């Protein structure tokens, strides 16, 4: 295939830690192999060589958290046939979406001595809140296997299929001891999407939800179970308000627990 007929791939970044892009760089040999099948024409972290669009496949890392990013992501969408949002930031706003329920102005004043120098939006939101997204790969960071699988499927002309089943199912499949049952460790595995290979339980600790909500997530039942473990309701709500806390299912779960706590406070004498 000549360079001109190879699919043109671009990688862009919004607000993020660069970890998902690093997963692409870390795909080393696979990337060198893929470089034979695709043409990466714009990837600032890896190359000084940058071509304008249009692009066949565009990967966008990071959340929308500054005014200029709204326009930037719209331009990227116009230049892209197939847009993939990669990672927790791009698919749920990321950990920096913890500002969404608080006063971002107060955040700026906390960290920056001269707040008027800093331009930021009050919220950190996923790409799909601003433009049409063709595929979402969740995870903090994304899984390299899922990314390469998705790109290979697209090269073969097929729509990639990403599992939405839970970490809990993955644990059973792999025969891991349940950290919630056996050790009483708070674990979001029952409501979190797989993709990591049930990494946290494999390492003797509870899942903290970095691949976002599974489908469908029974967050009510899990929230009650965590409260029954003796965890203060603030800490249970915080379990949901975390890496992917702005994903609707987790946001609602956290709010329900926090509301429940308020009810208790009102009911107390």
């Amino acid at each position: 295939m000549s360079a001109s007929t190879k699919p043109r791939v671009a990688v862009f970044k919004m607000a993020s830690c660069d970890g998902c892009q690093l997963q692409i760089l870390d795909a080393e040999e696979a990337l060198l192999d893929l470089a034979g099948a695709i043409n990466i024409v714009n990837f600032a972290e890896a190359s000084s060589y940058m071509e304008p669009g249009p692009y066949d496949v565009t990967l966008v890392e990071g959340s929308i958290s500054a005014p200029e990013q709204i326009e930037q992501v719209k331009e990227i969408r116009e230049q892209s046939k197939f847009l993939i949002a990669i990672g927790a930031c791009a698919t749920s706003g990321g950990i920096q979406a913890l500002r969404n329920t608080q006063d971002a102005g107060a955040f700026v004043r906390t960290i920056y001595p001269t707040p008027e120098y800093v331009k930021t939006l009050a919220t950190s939101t996923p790409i799909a809140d601003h433009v049409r997204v063709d595929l979402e790969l969740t995870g903090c960071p994304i899984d390299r296997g899922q990314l390469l699988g998705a790109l290979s499927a697209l090269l073969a002309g097929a729509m990639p299929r990403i599992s939405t089943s839970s970490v809990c199912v993955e644990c059973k499949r792999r025969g891991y001891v349940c950290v919630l049952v056996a050790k009483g460790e708070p674990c979001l595995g029952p409501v979190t999407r797989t993709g990591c290979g049930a990494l946290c339980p494999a390492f003797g600790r509870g899942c903290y939800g970095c691949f976002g909500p599974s489908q469908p997530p029974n967050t009510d039942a899990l929230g009650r179970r965590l409260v029954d473990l003796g965890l203060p309701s603030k800490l249970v709500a915080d379990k949901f308000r975390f890496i992917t806390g702005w994903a609707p299912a987790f946001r609602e779960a956290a709010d329900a627990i926090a509301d429940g706590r308020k009810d208790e406070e009102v009911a107390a004498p």
Partner: protein
Amino acid sequence: MTHRSVEVPVIARVEGEGALHLKVKDDQIVDLRLEIYEPPRFFEAFLAGRHFSEVPDIVPRICGICPVAYQMSAVHGLERLFRTQVPEGTRELRRLLYCGEWIESHILHVFLLAAPDFLGYDNAIELAKDEPALVKMALDIKRLGNELMAAIGGREIHPVSPRVGGFSKAPRRKDLAAFLPRLEWALGQMPGIADVVAGLPMPPFDRPAEMVSMVHSDEYPMNEGDLASTGGRAFDAVTFEQVSREVHVEHSNALHSVMADTGTPYFVGPLARINLNADRLPPVARECAARAGLSVPEPDPFFSMAARVAETAVAIEEAIRIIGAYEPPEPQMADVVPQAGRAVWVTEAPRGILYHRYDVNEDGTIREAKIVPPTAQNLRHMEEDLRRFVPGVLDRPDEELTRLCEMVVRNYDPCISCATHFLRLDIERS
């Protein structure tokens, strides 16, 4: 007088987003600003109110390239405040995890981000077409660092096992021993890599600099030690905020650090560490430094490449030593009882010292957090480098001038995600 306005779109191959503005009039710099427009993410603000046990899962998200550094500064600081005695073997396993990150980060920078500059390529894929064996070897060493991190932490980006109190699960002896043949192979490659770096064409750049790093009485510093500077300062994590002060400038979403007393910039990172710890370099690292032409004192930031190669050897030699003597910690985690007070700690991230402070409530929630990443400490120094370097190369055509400016910035392997990703360079000449 001739008027010239030049716009050069992008400096690539750094982590995070920023731009460089340069205005020149009659061969004089009238304005030079390293603009950091990567949007702020407010980590310090949303750490407030969170439980201490969540900190090792929150702070690595500041940076996908050096997540372990963030975890290490956090867990050590909190454990010291809580007077937690971590199980025997934890210290060495943490150092081994850090070795993996140094290997991965340094090789990423030397071969994927910086080397294409010196050899005139746009990226490592282009370099790989002409130098396939060299790039493959580098990628093999980098993958070794990644896999070592994953064996200990579960994954190399945002590891899951490091906790306040130890590791949620420690690797088995045989799992680590399996790395030894590859580590020995990698160590054997390092002198040859030092020779490659020695042969890179480096622009002459002579400047004085105050360099700051950790120092430790009997090891090359990573997780433990006091702080020292080549200007004769001696301090530590407890006094860090008295010695180093952050200033806010209009063109940057990252704060700049300066010395509190003199207001002058300082320089952290691999070259600073080697300058202050040359006598604690293990043998192969020492040989690599010598072969790359690096002898201390050496303040020229272009020697940072050589320093990264020597430090990759440090990390490999240390990894071999630690694995050779490794016994899994037992138990894996200490009991942690939170106490109110102030937790401070500094560790050596691949890019330099990383300071964390946590003010903790009695129930173990964080009341206030302060994090000073290495790139923020280097920003002012980077600007000053450009100010000193640019006048000597103003006779070069725009394209070459741009590339040279990018190289000056890239010496620091700036992580703008840490400090706050691509750099855009506008040169205006009048």
